[in-house]
């Protein structure tokens, strides 16, 4: 048992997976000698050697593409894309090949790979380091997209992703990497994919969120509690496929829903949830589904980052709107 941060939980899961299964290999830029620029892979090179912990040349297409080849041969590659802005370069390989290899060959070849990347805003970095590629990856058929929000869930979901027979894009919330600690037991137990985690139970309103925004959303739920409003908080965790059963059951109970994401509004996963609630949960709703999102603007440089990212005021305003609607 240890109090560890989210990034340490990632490291713990990688270490665990590599120890348990000799087919697991880790690759990316600076993941070996340097232990990863965020130290997600620290210690792995010493434990498992340079053949399984690979410092690749500077080439994102290569990282994603060779993972596909490795996976076809039965290795379990976990590749790291150093920053979210560089993840887009991998979409060609993930969409055109990783998500299709099993389908294209009728199961003859498959692609059990994991692509991890730190994403989301809030660490005041230079340009391209604050991206939310959630929806772009979630739109791709044949893959899974997973986005943990706590050290425990990072550990359990990463183990699940590595053991999954299909490609998983594992998005890590940079802002939460070291923000808080949690007790994580290194028991090698995976958490379930394709399922939501209900972090708070409530009756008055459903708050659906994922990634770093879980942090603010839980704080909002606590504040609402003090006002006598009991909010149910759901962490989506798997963005593709989404566990809509849990969300729909919650909204059937509360009748009101706010979806919180730090990604831009248009075609966000929040839109997918709102659409599904309209399709399958319409008669439960007392108010329209509220989406709290970033605006459809280019992510500004760090000076304006705090104006761009949604935060507690925006979540509270949406909750108020939903509660007071009718």
């Amino acid at each position, binding site marked *: 048992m240890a109090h560890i941060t989210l990034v340490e939980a990632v490291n713990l899961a990688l270490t665990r997976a590599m120890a348990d299964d000799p087919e697991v*290999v880790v690759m990316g830029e600076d993941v070996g000698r340097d232990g990863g620029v965020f130290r997600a892979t620290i210690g792995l090179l010493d434990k498992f050697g340079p*053949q*399984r912990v*690979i410092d*690749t*040349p500077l*080439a994102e*297409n*290569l990282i*994603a*593409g*060779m*993972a*596909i*080849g*490795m*996976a*076809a*041969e*039965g*290795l379990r*590659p976990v590749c790291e894309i150093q920053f979210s802005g560089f993840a887009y370069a991998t979409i*060609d*390989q993930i969409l*055109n*090949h990783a998500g299709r*290899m*099993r*389908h*294209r*060959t*009728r*199961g*003859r*070849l*498959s692609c059990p790979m994991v692509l991890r990347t730190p994403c989301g805003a809030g660490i005041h970095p230079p340009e391209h380091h604050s991206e939310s590629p959630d929806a772009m990856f979630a739109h791709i*058929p*044949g893959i899974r997209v997973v986005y943990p929000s706590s050290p425990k869930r990072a550990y359990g979901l990463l183990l699940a992703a590595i053991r999954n*027979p*299909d490609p998983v894009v594992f998005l890590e919330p940079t802002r939460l990497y070291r923000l808080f600690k949690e007790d994580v037991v290194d028991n090698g137990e995976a958490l379930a994919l*394709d399922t939501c985690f209900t972090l708070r139970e409530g009756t008055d309103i459903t708050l659906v969120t994922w990634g770093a925004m879980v942090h603010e959303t839980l704080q909002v739920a606590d504040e609402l509690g003090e006002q006598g409003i009991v909010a149910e908080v759901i962490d989506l965790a798997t963005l593709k*496929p*989404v*566990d*809509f059963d849990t969300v729909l059951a919650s909204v059937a109970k509360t009748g009101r829903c706010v979806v919180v994401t730090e990604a831009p509004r248009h075609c966000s996963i929040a839109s997918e949830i709102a659409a599904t609630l309209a399709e399958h949960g319409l008669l439960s709703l007392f108010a329209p589904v509220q989406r709290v999102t970033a605006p459809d603007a280019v992510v500004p440089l760090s000076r304006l980052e705090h104006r761009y990212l949604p935060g507690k005021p925006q979540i509270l305003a949406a909750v108020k709107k939903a509660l007071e609607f009718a």
Partner: protein
Amino acid sequence: MTVAATFQIEYLQFLDPNGKVVAPLPAFAKDPVALLPLYRAMVLMRTYDAKAIALQRTGQIGTYASILGKEAVEAGIGAAMAADDVLFCTYRENGVQMMRGVTMQELLLYWGGDERGSDFAGPRRDFPTCITIASQCLHAVGVAYAIKLRRQPRVAVCMLGDGATSKGDFYESLNAAGVWQLPVVFAVTNNQWAISVPRAAQSAARTLAQKAIAAGITGVQVDGNDVIAVHHAMREALARARLGGGPTLIEAVTYRLSDHTTADDASRYRTAEELAEAWKHEPILRLRNYLSASNSWDKAQEEILLRHCNDQVQAAAQAFQDMPAPPPEQMFDHLYATLPAAYAAQRAAILAAAADHGPHHAG
């Protein structure tokens, strides 16, 4: 002045366009009879190719990319590979795929628009036809890495075209293969055309083989219409890789005697004269001339071979045409190892719609 580096690229040719021997033959080619399997393979793949075009013209399959003119590249490479080597290829390598054990029926299924054509019964580890240009190079690097990690004597053979050598994926692959000394052979078919863009507009490099130099690996150029040269270069490259000597880039120089695809009309961008001139260098005629001249092949044998190839191709075409249409749920099968519950409703809807329209609705 100090010279930091120099390079040279070897060019290999053993038979000239007339089939005359112009360099000492490698051991495997010393006896012409030993070349007969290569010749037969080339004729079979050309027969298949003509049939595929005819099937497209009569609406039996969709767009098809012909291999006319590159039979020596196909046969030379296919014959050199070991069974458990791994092939990566474009859409213009049906010949190599046939030599690897992919059936003509499987190939026609693929061109006919059915994923079952890529579920090869034969070479289970070969990658399927890759449409996106040069992306298969990265996959080959991954497979080669796995092979090396496990210390297996296998080689990844990655085939690509002249146009593909302009892509970032290609350079990234060569670079990685070089830095890690991976057991991979990159075999570039330079057929002079990337759809309508001629070789001269594709790169300022004098040869495509010399792109190997930039990656620190071996590069060699061969006459792609000379099956002996192709086969020889391939055998050397495979041996090098198997012995831990690292990757090789082979540039096989040939000519695309067909249109880019059956939907293309090459007369839009190249002259009939150029095409006619290219036919004079074609690989099957060249080898046949050599074999005839060395009394290893005659008209009677040619007729028997043609009949045999026709029969084989016809049978494969018939088997393809007799295959029932894919069931609609094929769309969702093998999407994941196990279809997530979230998509069960969509799968059911596709099945229900198909039931409404009848089992073999063409739409």
